[in-house]
């Protein structure tokens, strides 16, 4: 598995390097326009990076099953389950790396904005702000951030597995059928429809329990309550990811036509 993940990162090293160079160059250019430029960068950078990331992780799989270079990977004695799981792990690691990079940009630009206003950077005050944030004194703490990130991560994995499954179906079950691409897209929509119906039913069943938790909440919602509230969504996403990864792995193993 590690060797497969290493391969994926080797293949996308050029993309990562280009993205980083572009981001740094853009940031440097906007910084010359003052604090407003820095703020603009921090606002515009995440959506642009997210779109690039989505394109990259979809390309990571579609190139392997649609181009001849995919033979490199699929000739190796690795099971379909292992191959698809390695791509998911790579996508998650890449996503986390992007988050880290954005956090670094926030720190750099934040410091620049403070310095450019002429204010002295008071590190003790900064530490106190971080301390209050971690303690949840703003009504929003590190716990909240963690729960939201975890939810976003599971939703992202569920989305990726759905896209990968649709592509796998195209190159396996429908590979010998005309309009296989169209059929796969319809399958993708059907999977999403079926999953959202199942999720809604699941939420309907458990909602009385969650309403009772919500009615007891006083003041701001705690990270624990936020986690409990988002738990069904996280659970459904995890189940969806496991089922679809298993199904895609099976198709890669038994039905693939590259």
């Amino acid at each position: 598995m590690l060797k497969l993940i290493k391969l994926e990162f080797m293949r996308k090293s050029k993309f990562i390097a280009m993205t980083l160079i572009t981001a740094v160059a853009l940031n440097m250019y906007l910084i010359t326009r003052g604090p407003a430029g820095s703020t603009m960068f921090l606002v515009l950078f995440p959506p642009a990076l997210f779109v690039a990331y989505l394109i990259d992780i979809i390309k990571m799989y579609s190139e392997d099953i649609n181009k001849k270079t995919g033979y490199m990977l699929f000739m190796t004695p690795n099971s379909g389950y292992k191959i698809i799981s390695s791509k998911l792990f790579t996508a998650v690691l890449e996503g986390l790396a992007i988050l880290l990079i954005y956090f670094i940009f926030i720190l750099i630009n934040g410091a620049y904005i403070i310095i450019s206003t002429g204010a002295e950077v008071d590190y003790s005050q900064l530490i106190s702000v971080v301390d209050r944030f971690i303690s949840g004194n703003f009504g929003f703490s590190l716990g909240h951030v963690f729960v939201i990130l975890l939810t976003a991560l599971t939703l992202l994995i569920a989305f990726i597995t759905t896209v990968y499954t649709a592509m796998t179906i195209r190159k396996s079950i429908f590979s010998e059928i005309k309009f296989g691409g169209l059929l796969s897209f319809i399958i993708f929509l059907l999977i999403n429809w079926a999953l959202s119906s199942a999720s809604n039913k699941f939420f309907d069943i458990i909602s009385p329990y969650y309403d009772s938790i919500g009615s007891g909440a006083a003041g701001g919602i705690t990270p624990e309550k936020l986690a409990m509230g988002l738990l069904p969504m996280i659970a459904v996403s995890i189940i969806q990811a496991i089922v679809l990864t298993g199904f895609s792995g099976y198709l890669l193993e038994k039905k693939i036509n590259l």
Partner: protein
Amino acid sequence: MSKLNLLQINDLTKKYYNKTALSNVSLNFEPGKIYGLLGPNGSGKTTLMKVVAGLHKQTSGNVLINDEELSYKTKAYVSYMPTENFMYDSFKVIDIVKFYNDMYKDFRIDYALNLINEININLNYKISNLSSGQVAKLKSVIALSRDASIYMLDEPLNGVDVLSRDAIMDIITKSNNENKVIIISTHLVSEIEKILDTVIFLKDGIVEVFGDAEELRQSRQLSVEGLYKEVFRNA
């Protein structure tokens, strides 16, 4: 492992849309022999190799490698060289070597590096910067650097200059031993016939001729190329 049946293909059929690429193909491959898989374009040679390599799934029939049904595990026994350039463009030659070394337990890295040096390809060249002839040579060298039970080379002489063809044929014959099967698909019959032990003629997905190359030459009083022309003249 059965000595006589390193690779067994039984009633193999492969269909695409309305086209039948292979129709009830049954073949047995014995170790120690070099097989020529011959036929015009579209006769099913590449499809047959891709099914054995696990890149295509057969419509019906079965394939046994070392008495095992095809699966990801049997890919460890098969070293397949596709006719297309399948190597990542962004990789350097050395990256391809490292990739094979990481993925295949039977990859002989020193042997590969030595052969790459012999064919004069710089390890730091990017795949995208190699000529088609260099890519063809590199593909053969990489595939033959594995110590696999079955080698399948799809058109190994395509795009290769005359001098390099001899070098590739030399590497192929050196790779052969009593435990291995080598299957070569080509339309350059005259170039390759001297190293073939057994020939298989595929025509429209059906096995037209399957036999010992020397026996065929003697019984038909024709070279393999002559026989090829006779069989496929009207194909």
